[in-house]
């Protein structure tokens, strides 16, 4: 269970990333953020976002048309 959840369903690029960035600021260091998205491009984008920012993409799954990501706030 993540510390916080961001519902980014129905949003298109780059909004899921921008909203996730904002939401991560409210997640304490070491805490997790769950993101729900329907943008198929978000799969590659969240991987790139985490590589670049140093946050950890802990989990990634898909349920029908909804993509679920769990990001751990590990960036300095």
């Amino acid at each position, binding site marked *: 269970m993540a510390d916080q959840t961001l519902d980014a369903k129905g949003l298109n690029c780059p909004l899921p*990333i*921008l909203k996730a960035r904002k939401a991560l600021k409210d997640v304490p260091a070491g805490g997790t953020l769950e993101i729900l998205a329907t943008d198929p491009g978000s799969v590659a984008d969240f991987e790139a*976002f985490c590589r670049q920012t140093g946050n950890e993409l802990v989990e990634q799954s898909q349920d029908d048309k909804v993509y679920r990501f769990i990001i751990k706030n590990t960036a300095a």
Partner: protein
Amino acid sequence: MSSEAQIVSSEAQTTASEAPVAAPETKSMSIIVTKGSLDWAYPPFILATTAAAMGLPVTMFFTFYGLPLLLKKLDLQLTAAGNPAMKMPMMGAHMGLPNILTAIPGVDAACSKMMKNLMEKKGVASIEDLRELAIEADVRIIACQMTMDLFEYSLDDMIEGPELGGAATYIECATQADINLFI
């Protein structure tokens, strides 16, 4: 220590404190924004907001037809004229518009309206929203002074936040940036 050496060291300190505060490994980006139609406004704002979200310091330099993207009230339009690639999804097909029809009054406005409706339906942010997000993310915004003079705009016409600058201001920024885009 000689007095000359002291002067040198105090100058070095001043330079260091004026340098951008960023970790050495931090990449940065600059974008020259030269176009102000609805479709061309998207790439610079999408890339600027995303780069900022990924931790990059970003500078946007608005010049020529890009400059009006900083006006307080936006009513962005596009034209299908000369753009054979502009085909919108309609009733299961993709429809373009022959060039000659784009000259009819009202056609561009109708195309712009259709595009905005389509974007809203698909969850694409408006340019107004992306611009707001860019400012929130501390994207540095420079309005080209020469274009301000040329098109007779003043900072009062613009949203809060732009600084004025010219080519040298941009070049200084570009020499320090890892990614420099011209859009």
